[in-house]
């Protein structure tokens, strides 16, 4: 008889929604099992089954029936979760039968989480008052766009100015110059690298393309980002020499173009891009030009997370901006990413 303590069932306690979830059962190889039933929730689907052959399993209504494993003592499954409510607890039930008798019955739970970005305030008009004294500048902003993340997952946000927007965002600092020079340098060197490693050519070009033209978080781009990054990591793992060459290119291009200013600026950007309630705002470096003439800002807020999930972009509508003088305003100054209670 197989006792409970002879069966080891693994399911992680938690997982970011949209990512893969491993699951396995290990039991004493000498024990023959007639049937295993794995019942899982609708928010999860099976991606792969390990150590089982065709004809020895079936899936019906989110229940997996396994009559035989290839090598006794092990069953592996890879699940993938779908996007659902921001935080849910789900159960997977495992039943094992031997000689038509239920000999093992256990429920394993997993918490599935994700970010939940909500807009609390979208002003239609924002007035900017720049108070310049002899020694200081003080900026008063009449109203802010209030965004909060009430989920447990980190939200990565970027703002896209639409075609019809009279105000466009841009990068005012030396970091942009550095970035351009850096990527041009990398691109040149990558051309040579692809000669040695033609099998990675498409990955390398896609990588440079992301660097030169940072994508918006739309489904196709996110899928491509995921593919390229995972592809590169895979390539580094399988080919150490390629990794070393690649790292050398990045490092030499970096050192060639870096300056003290970049070092300081990059830390400032870093500090301005992260917010307390698990928000990373990647536009921290960018500014907009405001002036005494009222102008329309027409934007969409794009959201993704650490599992490259795509969320519906938030249309911020028309926001009219007016300032008492022409001024370069940091984009983050328009936002309030205040903490809200996640409990």
């Amino acid at each position: 008889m197989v006792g409970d303590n002879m069966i080891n069932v693994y399911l992680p306690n938690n997982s970011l929604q949209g990512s893969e979830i491993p699951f396995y059962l290990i039991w004493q190889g000498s024990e023959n099992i007639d049937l295993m039933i794995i019942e899982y929730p609708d928010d999860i689907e099976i991606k792969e089954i390990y150590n089982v052959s065709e004809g020895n399993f079936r899936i019906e209504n989110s229940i997996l029936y396994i009559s035989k494993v290839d090598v006794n003592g092990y069953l592996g499954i890879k699940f993938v979760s779908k996007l659902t409510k921001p935080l849910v607890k789900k159960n997977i039930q495992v039943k094992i039968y031997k000689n038509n008798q239920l000999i093992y019955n256990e429920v394993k739970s997993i918490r599935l989480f994700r970010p939940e970005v909500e807009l609390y305030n979208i002003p239609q008009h924002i007035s900017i008052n720049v108070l310049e004294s002899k020694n200081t500048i003080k900026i008063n902003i009449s109203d802010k766009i209030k965004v909060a993340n009430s989920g447990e997952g980190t939200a990565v946000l970027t703002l896209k100015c639409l075609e019809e927007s009279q105000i466009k965002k841009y990068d005012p600092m030396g970091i942009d110059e550095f970035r351009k020079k850096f990527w041009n340098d990398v691109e040149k060197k990558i051309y040579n690298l692809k000669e040695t490693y033609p099998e990675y050519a498409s990955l390398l070009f896609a990588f440079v393309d992301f660097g030169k033209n940072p994508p918006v978080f739309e489904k196709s781009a996110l899928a491509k980002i995921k593919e390229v990054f995972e592809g590169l990591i895979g390539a580094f793992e399988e080919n150490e020499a390629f990794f070393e060459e690649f790292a050398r290119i990045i490092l030499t291009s970096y050192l060639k173009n870096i300056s003290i200013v970049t070092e300081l600026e990059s830390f400032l950007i870093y500090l301005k891009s992260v917010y307390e309630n698990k928000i990373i705002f990647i536009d921290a470096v960018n500014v907009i030009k405001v002036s005494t003439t009222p102008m329309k800002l027409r934007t969409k807020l794009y959201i993704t997370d650490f599992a490259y999930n795509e969320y519906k972009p938030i249309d911020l509508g028309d926001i009219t901006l007016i300032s008492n003088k022409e001024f370069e305003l940091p984009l983050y100054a328009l936002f309030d990413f205040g903490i809200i209670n996640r409990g």
Partner: protein
Amino acid sequence: MKMDPISSLLSYAGKEVVAKTVKEMLRKSKNIDKTLREEFKILGREMRIECPQSIQHYSITFKTKKSRVFSKKQKFNFGKVRRVSLQPIISLQPITDAISYTENGFEINLKRLEQDTLYLLEIEYFIEDRRFIDALINKNVSRESFGDEQYEYWMVAQFKHLNVLKQEFGVIELKDIDFGVDVSVYNDIKMKVPSIFTKQLEVAAKLLSKHHGGRDEQFRLYWQLQHLQRAKYSGEVFQILEQLQDLFLPLTFKRFVDVQKDFHFYDCERGQDFYETLPFPTWPKTMKVISRTDLNFNRPAADGLLIFKRKDLIKNLERIFNKGD
């Protein structure tokens, strides 16, 4: 070619890759055995795969006969080898001049071997199909930790195909399977950097930059800097940045992580965030922690836990900014 759902569910394409490579590995090991048996008695064999370098490592213990050996050399031309080592079990001192490498393998100079002695022969071959490890093992790690108190990240390694590893001599061991977990550090750094320090950085960055405005702007910046010089951290900006950077050095950062269960810590490096357009992060939002585990036929799955001791990192950050308090 699009796979049907069953083939995809059972990862048939990967199974073919694994079966082909294992067959090739066994062809080499069996040929080695056969050749050795012509002169010696094989006492033990072990096969393992060194995952980071994708290497087949085959070791055999054998005993030489009491009688004299007549042939001079034994040829093992079953594929290009990476490394071969031969040593008597008692001394474990490699007999380097007993081995010579050939175009397609190696040779043992039998004259260099003692009679009636136990030897250990170790041979390493590169596994040519680079897809092999990924086709054989499923690797998953948690993308993000849950909760605010303690940051924990799970890691799992599990065989996709087990029956292909079932061989006559039992265990094929897969050693040092690498796992990278991105440990989030950005929040703790952000929260611990005092606002006055950020202001000093802003002024310093503007002054050093060629992009700052006209005379008025310059005057204002100098005035601000003068004002800030009376404040804390003045003149220490670069030292503080350096100390902060030190926290992300592997030797320092490894103190803030603890790898438990079936995995062990191997290394750490600055993380690469997919949303960053600078691929060499000066200031990492994550640290990539590399952990390793082993799998074999008798242990087809392993799970590990990586704990990020963020309170220790926070203490270090506080120490940097509270010096002299």
